[in-house]
Each structure stands twice: as C-alpha cells, then as structure tokens.
C-alpha cells in the first residue's frame, strides 16, 4: 500500500479508532526525563561546587564570625553579605526547582483527566525512575544502618545455633564430666 495514500486515508478514519494516547506517553516520558536531567545537574552543582558548599554551611560562618570578633567590622559586613547572598541563591534555587516541578506535575495530573482514552499506567513520580531519591537520603541511610545491624544480629545468632547443634553431644559430655567431678 502506498505510504502517501495511507497517510491521506488514515486521517479520515473513524475517531473511535484513533483514541490512542501514544503522544501523551511520549510527552510525559520527555518531561520526566528532562526533569530528571535538570535535577541531576542541580544536585551535581550543589554537591560539586566547593564555593556553594562552603557557603551552605552556616555553622562555619558562625564559627568564623566568632573567631573574627576581634577583627574589624568590615569583615563582619562581608560575612553578612555572604550569608544573605547564599540564602538568596538557595531560596531562589529551591523556589525555582519546586515551581517547575509543581507546574509539570500539575500538568501531568490535569491533562490526563479524560477517562475514555486515558493511559492506565500510574504516572507516580516514584515509579517512573525520576531521581528524587536525594530527598530520602537520610531515611535511606537510617534504613541501611538498621538493616545492617539486623543482618549482623541474624548471622551471629545463626552461628551460635549451628555451634550448639553441632556440639550438642560435646556439651552433654562436658555437663556429665562436671557432674562426675562434683
């Protein structure tokens, strides 16, 4: 069948046949992968930039300001300027990221409200591979520590049980010997 003819004729098909959601899927994939890339870049910048890191540590500023109490007032002013600069950057960054995320998530939720042709897949961000794991970093670390302790405990317990089972007769003999000695 000629492709150009097929293109012409396919546009006249019944709308019932064309209730697909292929383009919506592509668009969502595109948006999510874009958001993922943006988030990764932001995280990299925040972690990798030593200037940003040093600014982000408020305690360091407080310590340094205590040490520099004897120094001139101009120094304090520069630290204060640094702090406000840092706060502004962080606030702007957070606001910007959250706004763009919110907008995209709102769009994804609202645009697919039509139930007749809707995609049955759940577009929960957690299930779509978006790297939001950094927000759960602390919880994840805690879970890792607890599971490590639990695993160690289980291993030690199982070793003790194996030893007891294997040396059951030996323990009994040892008990008898003690009784004989008494």
């Amino acid at each position: 069948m000629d492709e150009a003819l097929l293109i012409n004729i396919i546009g006249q098909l019944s709308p019932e046949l064309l209730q697909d959601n292929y383009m919506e899927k592509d668009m969502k994939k595109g948006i999510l992968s874009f958001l993922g890339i943006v988030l990764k870049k932001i995280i990299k910048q925040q972690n990798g930039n030593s200037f940003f890191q040093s600014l982000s540590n408020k305690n360091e500023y407080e310590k340094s300001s205590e040490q520099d109490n004897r120094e001139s007032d101009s120094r304090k002013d520069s630290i204060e300027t640094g702090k406000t600069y840092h706060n502004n950057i962080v606030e702007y960054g957070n606001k910007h990221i959250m706004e763009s995320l919110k907008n995209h998530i709102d769009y994804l939720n609202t645009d697919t409200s039509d139930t007749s042709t809707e995609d049955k897949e759940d577009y929960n961000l957690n299930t779509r591979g978006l790297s939001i794991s950094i927000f759960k970093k602390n919880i994840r670390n805690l879970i890792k520590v607890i599971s490590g302790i639990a695993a160690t405990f289980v291993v030690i317990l199982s070793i003790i049980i194996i030893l007891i089972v294997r040396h059951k007769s030996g323990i009994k003999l040892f008990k008898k010997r003690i009784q004989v000695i008494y």
Partner: protein
Amino acid sequence: MSVLEGGLNLKDEAIIDLIYEKNELGLSKLADKYEKLLIHIAKTILGSRSRDIEECVNDTYLKIWNHIEQYDMEKASLKTYLKIILRNTAINKLRDLSRREESELPDDISDIAKYYIDNSQNVEGKVFSKENIKQLSNIIGHLKEIDKELVIRKYFYLQSSKDIAKSTKMTVTAVDSRLSRLRTKMKKEFEKGIY
C-alpha cells in the same frame, strides 16, 4: 473571581458548553488544557517550523470554534477530536510545502513527512469512498495492538522510525521491516475485501 476564571482545569463537558455558547473563555480553557499536547503533535509532523506550528494550533482552535455542533461526545473524547483536526491541518500544511518548491525543509522533519511532501501530489486527486475508509478502519481495528500502534504512529502522527523505535523499545530496522510487512498485509486484505 469566579471558579471559571480561576486557574482550575475545566472538564471537557464544561469547555464544550462554553464553546457552544460562543464564550471565549471556553477557548482559553481549551488552550490551557490541551495546548502543550497539540504543540507536541504539530512539532512531530512539521518539525521546528514554529510559525507553522502556531498557525496549525490556532487553526485547530478556529475549526473547533466554528464546528462545535458536529462534535459527538459519544464517539470520541474532545482530545481525540482535537488531535484529528490538528493532524489533518498539519498534513495540509505539508501539502502546501510540497507545492512551494523553493521553501526549505527543516532538518528535524521526519523521513515519512519528507516522503509525503515529495509524493503527496501523486495521490492528491484520489478520492476514497466511505466504504473504502470503513474497510481500512476495520483492517486497522483488527491489527494487533503493537501493529496498530506502529501504523498510527507512522502514518497518522508521521513519527520517524527512530522515534517510534525509541517509544516502542524496538530497533529502527525492526520497526521498518514490521511496517513494510504490515503494509503488504493491509494491501492484500484491502484488495480482497476481507473486512
């Protein structure tokens, strides 16, 4: 500020009612809800020709505004109707491009769109009867879900084989060879009048 004027997304029924009443708010709500999708589809067909994309989307709004009484909610959703109108408007734009030989095509236009621009004039005069269209509808309706997806993506949305391969997690060669087989199969069924 009323609920209608707020930032809430209206349901399709409410949007249609507003357009029926020739209330321009309906059109603006329609744009709020579907513009991103329409631009995405237009971009797939027309490439990065931003002026054409804009014209295409605006024409779609105008068509829905003028012919809202023809919309049958039971047949398909408003979104589907919008997609069909937009797609056919974009195809008309491609046909115009094929007439204007001097116009430069964007690099990111798909292979199938280029093919259509080159060959649309050969099939321009061909008229299809309602029976032919119904027959093809039945043939496509009886295809496997993945085959139907390939055909619709390629010949309705004019997606490139590369993009189809990416979306369907197949290789470009597999997409092309499967589509070629499908065309042969569809042609046979069409000629035999199986459905």
